């Protein structure tokens, strides 16, 4: 009896582990696709709070930010 229950338990464990890994992989995949899919929506929201200069400037940061000016004291 003990000899049969051990492999059964290990089989069940292995199955559970496999299902857990599958869950993590598939949910991760869904999250990655969702991130790409909704990226334009985030762009829309971020753009809505940017000024026109921030929006059209090449190389500007993705999030709204003001250009900082420094003046050197002589």
């Amino acid at each position, binding site marked *: 009896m003990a000899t049969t229950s051990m492999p059964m338990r290990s089989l069940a464990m292995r199955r559970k582990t496999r299902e857990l890994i599958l*869950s993590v992989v*598939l949910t991760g995949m869904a999250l990655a696709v969702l991130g790409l899919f909704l990226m334009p929506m985030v762009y829309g929201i971020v753009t809505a709070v940017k000024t026109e200069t921030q929006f059209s400037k*090449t190389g500007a940061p993705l999030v709204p930010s003001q250009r900082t000016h420094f003046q050197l004291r002589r």
Partner: protein
Amino acid sequence: MALSPAQPATGTTNPVKTKKSSSKLTKTETRWGLLFLSPWIIGFLLFYVFPMIASFIFSLYDFNPAVPDQAKFIGFDNWTRALTTDPEVPLSFIRTIKFAMISLPIGLGFALYLAVLLNSKNVIGTNLFRTLFYMPSMIPIVATVLIWNGVLNEQTGWINVFIEAVTGIDATGTGGIRWLAEPGLVYYAYTMFGLWGVGGAMVIFLASLQGVPTELYEAAEIDGANWFQRLWKITIPLITPVIFYQLVLGVIGSLQYFLAPFVLNDGTGFPEGTTRFYMVYFYKQSFAFFNMGYGASLAWLMFIVALILTIVLFGTARYWVFYASEER
């Protein structure tokens, strides 16, 4: 009181009278049925049949809505012009078909992929994912096009910034990827806009996937079939009616593709005329040049083409669409 076996169960009822009263009942029911259907019938006649007849009549006239008094009957001249002398008609039609050949498989494939992914019991939070994937479908198409226009901007668009950051390719700036200005890329860019609208198709695919009997999967699993075999031999054949439905809608929708090129370029066909689709050309003729008669003949031609394509699709359905209740 028990009836003797010789007596009919209906007792004193006359069969002729029964027939009469049942036909009277049928008539009353028909009358009520028609009464309840009448708003739809009136709407159908007023807003579908009548405009279709009117547009056919327009197609036989040289008709400018700005000067309706000068409308002149010209027979099938508009149709002859569209079918033989106007080179833009076949060109715009070819462009539309080219775009449909790219966008339709990608759109349908993506919707099916999402449905299969979100139908899996292994994905955590499927309801939330389904809601989030459906969400962009609720955004008006014009807003969708404008947002994607920004995302695909060659200078500041996030897609180019992302590509540059990940691959190191010079994707932004003057030598960057011009998604909306490069003739070879513009159809793919428009396809990306379209992907935001896959929510509806995804929900329909999900419903059909949930209708597949689970015992088939269990039997296949016992037989040693792997995930791909189960998908290919059970899932896909059983949801072919829904794939067929989506395909027919997709083909008709692709032929009517209009809004994105119109919002982005005012229907100019930029870049290099590649986005002057059939419906854009139809719009230009009808509402920019006011050739309403010619526009009506173009609309009718598109209707005939869509009808033929739909009939062809229905003809092929017997070879690849499987209905559960069907006997072969």
